[in-house]
């Protein structure tokens, strides 16, 4: 999986370099700047995550969002995703770490999707633009989309 990413990046980088050196350097500069500006966030997430991984017993973890957690795991993941506000830059590494821990993809999808499409904490902002009723309707519809997608994930990828 990583090899594809490495090859794609290298090929595009070389192509970009041949086409326009200055643009390529400014792209690399942007990349480095972004990575640096987020490095603390990554460090923090990794530190907290690895600590939690050690102190939370395996069976607790497994019974809440592990392979055997089923619908309970989906509900927890949906709830957690709806309630939290974090950039994808943090959510996807967490998702990858959960995958390594053996958490099924459909539960990871429940978390990342609800995070992206449902906003409980950001509701006041949404309300300002759409009005309370429509904002509620939009979030409920988004929840339906999350649930349907989770079902698809379960069918395609299984446990």
């Amino acid at each position, binding site marked *: 999986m*990583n090899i594809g*990413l*490495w090859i794609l*990046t290298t090929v595009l980088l070389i192509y*970009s370099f041949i086409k326009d050196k200055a*643009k*390529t350097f400014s*792209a690399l500069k*942007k*990349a*480095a700047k*972004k*990575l640096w500006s987020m490095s*603390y966030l*990554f*460090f*923090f997430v*990794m*530190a907290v*995550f*690895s*600590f939690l*991984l*050690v*102190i939370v017993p395996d069976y607790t973890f497994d019974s809440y969002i592990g392979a055997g957690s089923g619908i309970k795991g989906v509900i927890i993941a949906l709830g957690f995703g709806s309630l939290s506000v974090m*950039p*994808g*830059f943090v959510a*996807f*590494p967490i*998702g*990858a770490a959960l*995958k*390594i821990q053996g958490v099924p*993809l459909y539960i*990871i*999808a429940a978390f*990342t*999707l609800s995070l*992206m*499409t449902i*906003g409980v904490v*950001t509701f006041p*902002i*949404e309300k*300002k*633009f*759409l*009005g309370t009723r*429509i904002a509620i*309707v*939009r979030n409920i*519809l*988004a929840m339906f*989309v999350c649930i*349907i*997608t989770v079902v*698809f*994930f379960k069918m395609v*990828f299984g446990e």
Partner: protein
Amino acid sequence: MRGRYIKIFFVLLFIVFIVLSYLIEYKTGKDTGDAFFHVLVEMLKILPFAFILIGLFEVWIKKETVVKHLGTKSGMKGYFWVLILAGFSVGGLYVAFPLSETLYKKGASLKVIFAFLGFAGIIRIPMTIFEISFLGLPFTIVRLMVTIPLFLLIGILLGSILEKRGFKFKIK
């Protein structure tokens, strides 16, 4: 400034905790260190590449070009363009709301606007690059294939119901 000191303090605290744990053979600390190292290696295999891709994307493809074409919002074309526009948006949904207000002011239909609000959550390109890097291409493909049609449908349904009811966007 103070936030910076807190950050440095936390990083040092964590490093000291891990190093001490190895020195005094404290199991929880050692395991945390091992797990941290493992995750760090995995991240380093992905992060630089994902960010370079995002950098290339930002340099080579301009958002302005997309916005310029949004004048054509007739029929299916409108949905196509807001799909692209959503791909170019940054930040979370809280950025999409002000943008949808702009679309509304420029005369986009409510159907197109609500489709945009749905798309904005799911297909931002930098985020998608990141998702593919960490969770794999099959994950992203399944997610997009299911969510895009659903949010398109929601946009059309919600938009046409609200148009019938004479819904007005709240403009500050």
